[in-house]
């Protein structure tokens, strides 16, 4: 049943659209499609972005690992390396601050009428992605430099899945509580 839904290409496109509409509503209602909210986060004055991301991670993590333990879902963990993850992450961060949106929230910003997100942001994103595709053959040796030896936190720490999931949830909840307590 699940495999039939997952392998229906047009059905998946329709489902993607529905998921996107719901995602867009949550992003817009949370305020993270706004330039001032993202910049406020990066200047450490407004913690809305962190609150949204951490609550999504807590709820998502518990459900996804529960479904995985029941054999209902597959995990999709990506490997990483110093050359790819750290260097790419820092380039991304610079772009995050200059644009004031990220690749998901920029789409939401377009929907609410922010022209800088469409004319500057989306065109820039398409151009930068294209540049990577062009440079890719020359970048591959660098991208694999310093590969991480472990894919997940539980492998890294040699512990069971729930021994990693539960403490992570507790730490994230404590961080959110601390932010509220500090008045953010």
């Amino acid at each position, binding site marked *: 049943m699940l495999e039939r839904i997952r392998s229906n290409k047009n059905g998946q496109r329709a489902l993607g659209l529905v998921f996107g509409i719901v995602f867009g509503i949550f992003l817009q209602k949370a305020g993270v499609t706004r330039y001032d909210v993202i910049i406020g986060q990066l200047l450490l004055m407004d913690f*809305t972005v962190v609150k949204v991301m951490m609550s*999504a991670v807590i709820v998502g993590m518990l459900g996804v690992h529960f479904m995985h333990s029941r054999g209902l879902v597959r995990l999709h963990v*990506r490997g990483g390396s110093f050359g790819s993850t750290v*260097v790419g992450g820092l380039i*991304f961060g610079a772009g995050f601050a200059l644009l004031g949106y990220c690749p998901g929230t920029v789409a939401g910003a377009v*929907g609410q009428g922010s022209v800088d997100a469409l004319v500057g942001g989306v065109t820039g994103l398409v151009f930068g992605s294209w540049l990577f595709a062009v440079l890719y053959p020359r970048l591959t040796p660098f991208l694999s430099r310093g590969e*991480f030896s472990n894919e997940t936190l539980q492998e890294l720490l040699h512990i069971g899945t729930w021994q990693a999931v539960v403490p992570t949830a507790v730490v994230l909840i404590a961080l959110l509580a601390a932010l509220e307590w500090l008045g953010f």
Partner: protein
Amino acid sequence: MEWLSLEQWSPYVCGAGIGILSWLSFLLSDKPLGTSTSYVRTAGMLERLFRGDRVLKREFFQKVTPSIDWQWMLVLGIVIGAFISSVASGQAHIAWVSEPWLTAFGAAVGPRLAVAFIGGALLGLGSRWANGCTSGHGISGTMQLAVSSWVASICFFAGGIAVATFLYAVLAG
């Protein structure tokens, strides 16, 4: 539908909602929520308009086909969802320059669009370089406890905080 016309929902409610959405996306689509690959697919589709099928010979486009898939539709859905949400709350409006840029650097459209384009280009380059963005790594990857995603997310924010601070505390300050 009164809830849809509210200007803002609690960030915790929105975050939890996105968390539940990710359950459904793993369960029904066998995919983590993510957005940035759609921009490189778009780039490939546009290049194909000009250069034809030669584009498909690029090593990267053999790995990631330039076509409209589940995630591309998801990004389109985000535009529509945010449109619905902002129209319902009366917040939708055409804005070229927003605060705090306005106060710091003025209302001129050119500089803002130029910086937004450079920022967008770095986001596109960086998300492919790191193999994910604030959704794919920041939310979907960290919830799977992927080492690469936690490292990526820390770097996204480290880079972002450094450049935003330079922009607003040094240049504009």
